């Protein structure tokens, strides 16, 4: 198989683009897709500092790598979930990445903020671990950005993540979730920073290939709590569809963003308040994060 651009031996075939690329041309293709995402959705400017949420995995470190190379001002944020050896290793990967590139990394531990690490939160709430984990991440990413005066948080969500989330929302017709699914969510309150996903045009396999070719030392092992997660099941279903019909995931997500999402956006907007406890944004009186922290503290208090 030959590179579409230069004719050299290809290292990666992208069936949905009916193309294959050699390593240098694939890296350029990848960076162009990120540039296009940032440009199209005006995600951030070179005058702003972007808080890049990093997990030690391929996606977030690939994103950070591109943004650094593109000359953006960035600071990393690693949220220590306290998930046994997995968190120890993923934190070390992020610290090594930041040190090698001379960029700053903020580390925040969920256990310090909530009162217990994710495995204990799972037991206390008796809900899937991804539930408390996701809630904590969203809250802490926004709060850390605000505390450090950064107007935007960038996450490593890729095309597969977004297609799987959309699939899950549609399967349950969660019409309140559909308007919020976007590559770029604007700030709708003084205490909410923008949230952007510059990798949304790139598949999971493409981000993995980029990380490999850039020799980024990322954590290959999966989070021990991800096994059996619904999002994985949805990804497997979508990957089978993609295998049978290249471009299926892209068409599903981009068709939604272009043609269906605007219809859901017209729905009534929600009223945003400030949490009576922590001052962060919520639709109620006490935010979900504070409720979670209360629940954890009641159960784990000596």
């Amino acid at each position: 198989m030959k590179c579409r651009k230069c004719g050299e031996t290809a290292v990666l075939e992208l069936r949905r683009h009916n193309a294959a690329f050699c390593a240098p041309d694939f890296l350029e293709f990848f960076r162009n897709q990120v540039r296009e995402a940032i440009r199209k959705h005006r995600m951030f400017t070179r005058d702003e500092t972007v808080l890049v949420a990093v997990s030690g995995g391929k996606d977030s470190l690939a994103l950070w790598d591109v943004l650094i190379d593109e000359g953006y001002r960035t600071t990393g944020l690693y949220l220590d979930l306290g998930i046994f050896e997995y968190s120890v290793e993923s934190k070390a990967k992020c610290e090594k990445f930041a040190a090698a590139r001379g960029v700053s990394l903020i580390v925040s531990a969920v256990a310090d903020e909530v009162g217990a690490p994710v495995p204990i939160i799972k037991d206390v709430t008796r809900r899937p671990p991804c539930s408390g984990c996701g809630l904590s991440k969203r809250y802490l990413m926004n709060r850390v950005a605000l505390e450090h005066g950064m107007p935007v948080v960038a996450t490593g969500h890729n095309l597969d993540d977004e297609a799987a989330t959309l699939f899950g929302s549609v399967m349950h017709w969660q019409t309140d979730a559909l308007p919020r699914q976007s590559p770029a969510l604007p700030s709708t309150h003084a205490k909410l920073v923008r949230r952007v996903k510059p990798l949304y045009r790139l598949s999971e396999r493409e981000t993995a290939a980029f990380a490999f070719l850039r020799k980024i030392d990322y954590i290959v092992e999966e989070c021990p709590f991800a096994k059996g997660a619904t999002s994985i099941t949805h990804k497997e279903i979508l990957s089978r569809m993609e295998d049978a019909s290249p471009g299926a995931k892209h068409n599903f997500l981009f068709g939604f963003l272009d043609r269906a999402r605007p219809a859901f956006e017209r729905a009534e907007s929600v009223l945003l308040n400030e949490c009576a406890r922590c001052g962060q944004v919520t639709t109620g009186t006490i935010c979900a994060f504070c409720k979670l922290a209360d629940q954890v503290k009641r159960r784990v208090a000596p």
Partner: protein
Amino acid sequence: MKVILRNPRREVDVPGNRRVKDILRELDIIPETVLVICGDDLITADQVVRDGDTIELRPVMSGGSASGR
């Protein structure tokens, strides 16, 4: 030839002198879900892997709470 699989890490022996896509089919692995690594290189599905070679099929799928990915 040897095939390294991940999560959990393990090795399997399969007949070589075949294209990558044939090996993936035998192992019931969707090509979209893995990188195929041979030495320090990525290889495409049409490449032939020889007896005595080792390839790694590195999964690309991650899941769970994607909020901070």
